[in-house]
């Protein structure tokens, strides 16, 4: 019951803010609504029992990515984008002709049908009983998986990130005359 209420709240937050991100005309407001979407997704993770992933979602996106996006929007002039924003109908004719629209419509229909078929089989196989409220912690398992089973992938990704960091530092460094 409690989990269902939380799930519904998170889902409403995610979808509502997601729509707001798309329709709002101010780029800065879009960023703030994106914050709501990402928090909602963290809530969805939490209701599914993935507590570590949920907190990591907040940590990475709210604490890092959204602030960086806000900085980027502000430094590149977020206010100027307001007047240039166009609605979808005004934009549509410039994006293709009737053949491209027909093709993309067909692809969309096939995509939706495939997803519905996949989800139907999942939904019918779900247990009808309510899931247990006592969710186990995932921290220990994630730790074991990261530094025991998948240690190579873990280390490789850390080397990649270090490379990105060094590269960014070299690009941003002021050149000596």
């Amino acid at each position: 019951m409690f989990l269902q209420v939380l799930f519904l709240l998170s889902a409403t937050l995610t979808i509502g803010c997601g729509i707001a991100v798309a329709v709002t005309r101010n780029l800065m407001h879009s960023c703030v609504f994106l914050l709501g979407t990402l928090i909602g997704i963290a809530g969805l993770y939490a209701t599914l029992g993935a507590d570590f992933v949920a907190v990591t979602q907040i940590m990475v996106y709210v604490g890092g990515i959204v602030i960086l996006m806000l900085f980027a929007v502000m430094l590149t002039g977020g206010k100027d984008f307001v007047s240039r924003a166009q609605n979808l109908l005004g934009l549509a004719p410039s994006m293709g002709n009737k053949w491209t629209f027909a093709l993309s419509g067909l692809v969309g229909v096939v995509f939706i049908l495939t997803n519905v078929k996949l989800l139907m089989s999942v939904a019918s196989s779900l247990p009808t009983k309510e899931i247990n409220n006592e969710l186990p912690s995932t921290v220990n398992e994630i730790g074991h998986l990261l530094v025991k089973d998948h240690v190579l992938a873990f280390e490789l990704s850390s080397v990649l990130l270090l490379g990105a960091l060094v590269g960014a530092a070299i690009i941003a460094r002021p050149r000596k005359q």
Partner: protein
Amino acid sequence: MNQTVVSYLAQYEFFDSLLALFGGNQGLLTFVIFMIFCLAIVGMCATIGGLGTYAERKISADIQARIGPNRVGPYGILQFLADGVKMMTKEDVMPFSADKFLFYLAPMLALVGVFATLAVLPFSTGFTLSDMNVGIFYLIAISSLVGVSVFLGGYASNSKWSMLGGMRGASQIISYEIPVTISILAITLLAGGMGFGTISAHQRGLPTNWFIFHNPFSFIAFFVYFVGALAETNRAPFDLPEAESELVSGYHTEYTGMRFGFFALAEYIEVFVVCGVGAALFLGGSNLPVDLSFDIIPLQLVEVVIFMTKALLLYYVVIWIRWTFPRLRVDQLMSICWKYLTPIAIFNLVGCAIWVVLFNGKSVAQLLMGGGH
């Protein structure tokens, strides 16, 4: 494993009679208990935030050989109520060209981010709202909402001072999160868990069991944490986002009335939360100095008092530092974070890891008293 205040109360007999009172509806009872505790904790912390402003003025007066507020109530202790009434009755001014939506949202986000951290703050072993397995990680993550609010407050005011303050604030909070998080990681390593319950259980008994005295590296980690926490809460000597002499009042220059009050309240409560985390991680948290085998509810209240004493002592030190040290420059701020605190924190983390492997996780006191085994 995820213990809450409800699961703590459920071990007592009166819980069953309460359950009977609610007609066996356990969900409703859980909700009511959580509600009561949330209201109590939020109310208490809001009062601490309000009293923080009084303490700040009184202690600063003491340090500067003045008297400080002394008109409202005995020793001026009701000054914060008078300030609150003043803020609530003041006109809510909004700058003409401000971004209305973000201008209204920013103070709310600051309060939400701070109040959300109270969910895991371990007031005592039983009276923690939720002792999550990812407790400290959650606290670090959710408190970054304050950084967003500082930035948005500065941006939405559409004023140069606010903008500069907001940018300084956001960059400072992001930078100082790194040494603070790495210092906390060292403690997580020693405790073997991220939940406040696990961390607190490892520090039971005498102060020699506290993590600050566990090994030389954790001793340094405490100071790295404390300096970083000062910077993260925008307290002096790191209060560049609201430097009066340069930026009028920084990101909340354009805010008036209760919206300014929200920012001020959020700052003071955040300082309390940060001090509480310091007390819980390094100074033994709410543990009694003796190890008792039984557990009754009055004992929990004693634990709350112990925790609050430690946190408020740190709070005093924070105020003391504010009125003692001059403010840093921006370049000094960044070089302290990136050239000194972060390398020291990483060194501490590696040192703690080596210590755990070498001495099997034993503290200095245990090694001295245990005769080297």
